[in-house]
Every structure is written in C-alpha cells, then in structure tokens.
C-alpha cells in the first residue's frame, strides 16, 4: 500500500516535467523539420535574429506569467507598450541628446505608473482583472493617439544613440538579448528564492488561506501588476528603438501573443502554477514559429491561423495529459 502510494506521487509530480519535455521534444522535431526544408534556419545568423526578435516577447511573458499565477490576466500591455514607447520616442525627438539610459528609465517609469493604476483597480476595488485591463487598454491606447496626435515618430527623428539601444551589441551579443537574459536571471531568482516571489504563488494557489496565514494579498497583487507595467514600459522603449518607429497602433493585439506564450509554456490560467523553465520553452516555440514560417515560404497570412491552432492544440493536449494521469492514479488506487 505504502509503496503503491509513493509511486502515485511520482506519477503526478512529474506531469509538469512530462509536459515540459513534450514541448521541448516538439520544438526539436519542429526545428529538424524546418532545417530540412530550409538549411538557413540553424545558422548562427538566423538564430541570432530569432532570439533578438523573441527578446521583447520573453520580457513581457515573465511579467504576464506572474500575473496569471495570481489568477489574473493583463490585456492592457499592448496599449501600455505603445504609450511608453510613444512618450519616450517623442522625448527623444525633442531632446536628441538624451542618454539611452534615461530613455530606458523614462519608458520603464511610464509603464510602471500604468501598472500601478491597474494594480490599484485589481487589488483595491473588486473589478475583475479582465475587465479592469480591458478598460485601461482603451484608456492607454486613446492617450497614445492623443499625445501623438495620430502621427508617427519615424526613424530619422530618432537619435542614432537611441536606435543603438536595440541594434548595438556587447561582445557580439545584441543588447536586447542581454537585457532579456539579465531580466530572466533576476526574475528567476526573485520568483524562486525570495519570500515575496513565493507569495505570488501562494496567493494564486489558495487566496483564502493566503489571507488567513497573514500574507498581504492586496499588496502582492498590486506588486505583480506594477512589475508587469514596468516590464511593458521597458519593452516599449526597446520596441520603438528596434523598429525605429513609434506609432499609435504599435503592438496592438500583442497581449495575445504574450498570453499565448505563457499558456503554451504551461502557466495555468487557474493560477498557482508556472515555471520560468516552462515559460522559456513556450516563448521559444512562439519565436520559432514567427521566425520559421517566412523561411518556409508560408504566406504571412497563414501565420495567425497557425499560431491560433497551435495554442489551442497546446492547451488541449496539456489538459488531456493531466486528465490521463489522474485517471491512472485512480486505477492505481484500486489495485
């Protein structure tokens, strides 16, 4: 009986791992397939491109993962990104001498402010995250239009030092990649090795007992949305610098890609679960899809449908795997 039980435990505990390995396996098979069709896929140059292009998605996904772990969702990040990117770009336009660091700081601060507002709505009023962020998405997007007057800030209006933020590199590694790596290291540590980081999981896993055991649930929620905002603000600057243009409709609908990366990466919308390692493979899969579909000469018009289909497939397979393990455990109990 006792032996049987420990086997059961092993079974269920490893579901997450099976999922992650399955996803990695899928990524490998996909890569091999793409490589066979187009040998330029696995070249250093293309891989560098791939990772550079995925860096912003990965930044946003870390923040979104934390939000989803607390049982929330943030639909406003596309708009926040556009707002912070636009304000930063306009500042750079009027002050070409502005140091890139200050530009990054400015964008991050704007994002942080947006995040704080949303955090307030979610934590302190009883508005559901989906509604609060839906509303603020409209507000932030409208503000972006309003501030810019609907006009673009284009490449020639930006200083070269500003554009250098996203195009430059240290030791041959693109700044974007560096920023992403540093962010991941910081948040890996924060999520797994600090008390505050673990509280995020506790709040998402069981809000009632988190309250009873003296965790400040409101503050944790607020913090999570503020972090999401700050990361989005940072991403806004990077985005504008990378594409060398700031538009009012920048990153419209991009929140869906970010949520998709999280969900594919095994972050459960029911809250409480999600790991950085899983998230990375989710981000990687989306990055590969974005990168490889053009290489395969897939029409750009197929990309959305393929993406939507894969997300749906990933979440359904994930649900089925989980169910199957539960069933096996029951049979195990019977014996």
């Amino acid at each position, binding site marked *: *009986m*006792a032996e049987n*039980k*420990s086997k*059961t*435990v092993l*079974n*269920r*505990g490893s579901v997450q791992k099976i999922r992650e390995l399955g996803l990695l396996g899928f990524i490998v098979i996909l890569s091999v397939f793409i490589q066979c069709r187009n040998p330029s896929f696995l070249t250093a140059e293309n891989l560098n491109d791939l990772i550079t292009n995925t860096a912003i998605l990965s930044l946003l996904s870390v923040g979104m993962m934390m939000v989803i772990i607390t049982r929330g969702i943030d639909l406003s990040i596309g708009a926040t990104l556009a707002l912070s990117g636009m304000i930063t770009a306009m500042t750079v336009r009027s002050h070409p001498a502005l140091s890139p660091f200050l530009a990054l700081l400015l964008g991050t601060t704007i994002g942080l402010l947006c995040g704080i507002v949303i955090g307030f709505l979610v934590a302190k009023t009883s508005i559901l995250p989906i509604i609060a962020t839906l509303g603020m998405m409209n507000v932030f997007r409208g503000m972006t239009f309003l501030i810019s007057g609907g006009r673009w800030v284009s490449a020639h209006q930006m200083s070269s030092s500003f554009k250098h933020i996203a195009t430059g590199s240290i030791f041959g590694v693109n700044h974007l990649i560096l920023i992403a790596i540093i962010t991941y290291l910081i948040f890996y*540590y924060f999520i*797994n*090795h*600090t*008390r505050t980081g*673990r509280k995020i*999981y*506790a709040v*998402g*896993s*069981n809000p*009632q*007992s*988190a309250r*009873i*055991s*003296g*965790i400040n649930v409101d503050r944790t929620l607020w913090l999570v949305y503020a972090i999401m905002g700050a990361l989005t603000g940072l991403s806004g600057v990077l985005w504008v610098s990378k594409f060398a243009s700031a538009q009012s409709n920048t990153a419209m609908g991009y929140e869906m890609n970010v949520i998709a990366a999280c969900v594919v990466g095994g972050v459960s919308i029911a*809250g*409480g*679960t999600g790991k950085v390692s899983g998230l990375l493979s989710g981000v990687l899969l989306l990055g590969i899809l974005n990168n490889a579909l053009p290489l395969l000469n897939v029409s750009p018009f197929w990309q959305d449908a393929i993406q939507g289909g894969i997300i749906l497939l990933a979440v359904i397979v994930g649900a089925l795997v989980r169910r199957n393990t539960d069933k096996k455990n*029951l*049979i195990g*109990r*019977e014996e």
Partner: protein
Amino acid sequence: MSKYILELKGITKTFPGVKALDNVCFQLKPGEIHALMGENGAGKSTFIKIITGVHQPDEGEIYFKGEQVVIDNPNDSKKLGIAAIYQHATSYPDLSVTENIFIGHEYICPQTKRLLWKKMNAKAQEYLDELGANFESTTMMKALSVAQQQIVEIAKALSANAEVIIMDEPTSSLTTSESEDLYRIAESLRDSGTSIIFISHRFEDMYRLADIVTVLRDSKYIGTWGVNEVSNEDLIKAMVGREITQLFPEKKRVLGKEILKVHGLGKIGYFSDISFTLRKGEILGLTGLVGAGRTELCQAIFGIHSYDKGHIYLEGSEVEINHPSDAMQLGIGYLPEDRQAQGLILEWGLEKNISLSALDKISRNGWLNKKEEIKIAKRLADKVNVKARSVFDLAKQLSGGNQQKVVVAKLLTADLKIIILDEPTKGVDVGAKSAIFEIMTDLAVQGYAIIMISSEMPEILGMSDRILVMREGRITAEMTGEEASQERILEAAMKKTA
C-alpha cells in the same frame, strides 16, 4: 507558572442573530490530548476559531501559560505557539511540501534575504521522517492524499514550534489504517510534551486517544470528564441533551413491492460490485466511513457520475441514467450533502429555488407561469414547515435547518418514487433534525422509497428499516433495523481486508 498551558474562561461570542458560544470554559494541560466533542453546530468550530484568532470573543479571558493574552489575528496565535489543522486542508496545492511547511516563517539568509531551500528541504524531510511519512519534502502538495496532507499540516505545526496543536476532525476522511498512523503520531507528540486538542465525531477516536473530554452543546459548556470515568451513554446524553430515542418517530410502515434493484455496479477507484434492492415505503440506511464510496455510489445512481459496470433496474426494467435530469424523469431524486454549494442558489428566493427542479411544471412551452410557481412554492414550503416570512425570502437568509427543508421541498416538486438523502442532518440543529426525520417518515408512509446516507450511528439505527454498510467501495454488511447494532455496523465499516 500555571498548571495549564491554555485556559479559556467565560468565552461568549455572538454573531448577528446567533449566540455561537455562551460562557464556555476550557482548560488544557501540557502534554495532554483533550477531546472536544459535541454535535454539529454545538460551537466547536467557533471555539477553535477563537483560540486561533480568526474570531475574537465578545466576553471572556484567554490565558496562555498562566498569563492573560489577547489573540487578535491568526498571527498572534501562531506566535504563541498554537497551530491548527483543519478538516479541509488549507494548504497551497501548487507548492511543494517544504514550502507548505515553512510558509510565513521561511529560513532566510540574513544578508541577502535569499530563501535557503536546501536547509528548508532538509529540515522538512527531518520532520517528515520523524512523523513516519512515506513521501519526499519536494513533492507537490496536490499529489498527496488527504492523510499525507494532514501529516504535512502537522509538520507545519512542528516547524512553527507549536506547543498546542488543534486537530479539527482529522480522521473524518481517513481510512482505518491511516487513522491508526495519525493516532500514533498524536501519541508521540503528546509524549514529547505537546498538547493536543482533538475534535471528533467518532467515539472510537476519543476512546483510543484522548485522556480527557470536554463536551459542548447548543453553544454552552456542558462538562469535562476523564475518558475512563464516563460511559458512552452519559456522553451521548451530554452531547444530545436527552435520550436519543425521542428523536426518532416510530417505525410503523408497511413495505411495498421492490422498486429499485442495483446489480454489480462498479466505478474504478470509487466503488465496485454493488448490489442491493429497495422497496416502496422503505428507509434504507447507507453507512460507512467518509470516503467509503457512499456518496459516489448514490451520485452514480442519480446520474452525476458515470459508472463503468453493472445495471440499474427500476420497477423491473433496466434503465440508463446519464444525467440528473434522466434520473429525475425516472423518479429518482437526490438531496446533496452540501446544501449550500450543491442544493441551493443562495442569492435566490425560496420560490425560485423550489421550482428549479420542476421548471416544466410551472411553464407551458417554455413560458414561465410565475403565479403557479408561487403557488407551488407556498404549498411545498408549508408542507415541510419552512420557517420564513415570505416565499421571496432569499435562501441565504435562512438557518441551516430551514435551508435543508427547502432542499427537501425541491425534491417534492418532481414526481419522485425514490429519494436519496446524503447526510440530511449535517450541520442542522437538533430541533430541525427531528423535523427532518418526521418528514422522512411521512414520505415513507406515503410510499416513497428512501435511501439515507449517514455517518451518524444513532440516526442510522433510529431511522432505517434496513442498513447497508460500505467499506472501501464495497458493501460489507446488510442487516435489518432490528438486528443492527452499533457494534455490528462498526465492525463491518472498519474491519481490515482479509
């Protein structure tokens, strides 16, 4: 230093409309296992919540090691060294065992504020080994069984250096052997000087484990006895307040012909090889420990869960039931165990609650007839004697007993032949209990066939014409009401698999 580690004097707590505790006293010595007993609604949970700081008393004093203390919130009681293990695990299912044990008092590197996982894992494993657990500290909490989760809760208490551990019905979801493990752990904790307050409905828990027992009844303190000094009858009398035979109406029914026959019913992991019959006008008691598969069996008959094997015959012909609506069409009704979550829509008035299971009756071609709805609701609410001001009173405003009566009234809207009642008196006060028993007897006399699931021995013995006992998913005994006794039922419910 006082000779008591924890002492409560004259505790009174009033909630809007209810006096939950009335001048209750309690004394706990170091290294003692103290059973706290009483019926549902006697005030045990409120009492525990006072000690753990979830509620604050209106009157009364709390002394810890002889000093008066004020416990304003759960953190205060934690600091004093009081830990509680609740009936429903309050854990974080998505976190590891180690984290569950240490949450709120993690080991932290004083300089970097980094969590010391290695140290915590090792220490957690130490606790687990000490408690004889068969799982690792890095396991996810949701992968554990209820019994294993309880061990984690105990380890959590140990890690917080608890000197007083409160166990709230810890054995209610455990198998016999798991309970035995828990007894062993509790004893070794006692021997090392920890005091335990043990709340249970089960006499066997108390006799096996406790040194001393305190009884609460109707929010009041009744008395404290040494376990060896008090007889079973006296204890029951103390808990119930009168001879229990008064509670049950006389059995004076004539049984009709067979209406339901279940043959070889099985569902992997829940129950197997279940066969029994039910006659018109009969009250069939279905008992066994929680987790024996009683609820799952009845829910399968009602179409909430599927079954893998076997057949159900209704009045001689085989039926297939895939959904509660099928069952209701065939004349089978089910009163769920958790009336608030499964039986009622709390935000709705009585009239809508009562009519929900019989919308066809109050509608023509899908159009609601609200006058008819009110008429039916009024008739049925009167029939089961619901105490309410009007049929528009919201279900959440009623007392537990009246809520239960509304759920019974819901059953009566449909043309039922068979009624399954799952723990019909759970959390209901004594007065409402006897009212529910009276309704049940009335229904049986009218020819309804009734299956009553219950864990409470007196009501099984007092109400049933025939009794089925389940253990680990199988029926282990069948006996008539006359030949049944507490001992026989317990033996069938608990005996180890040969």
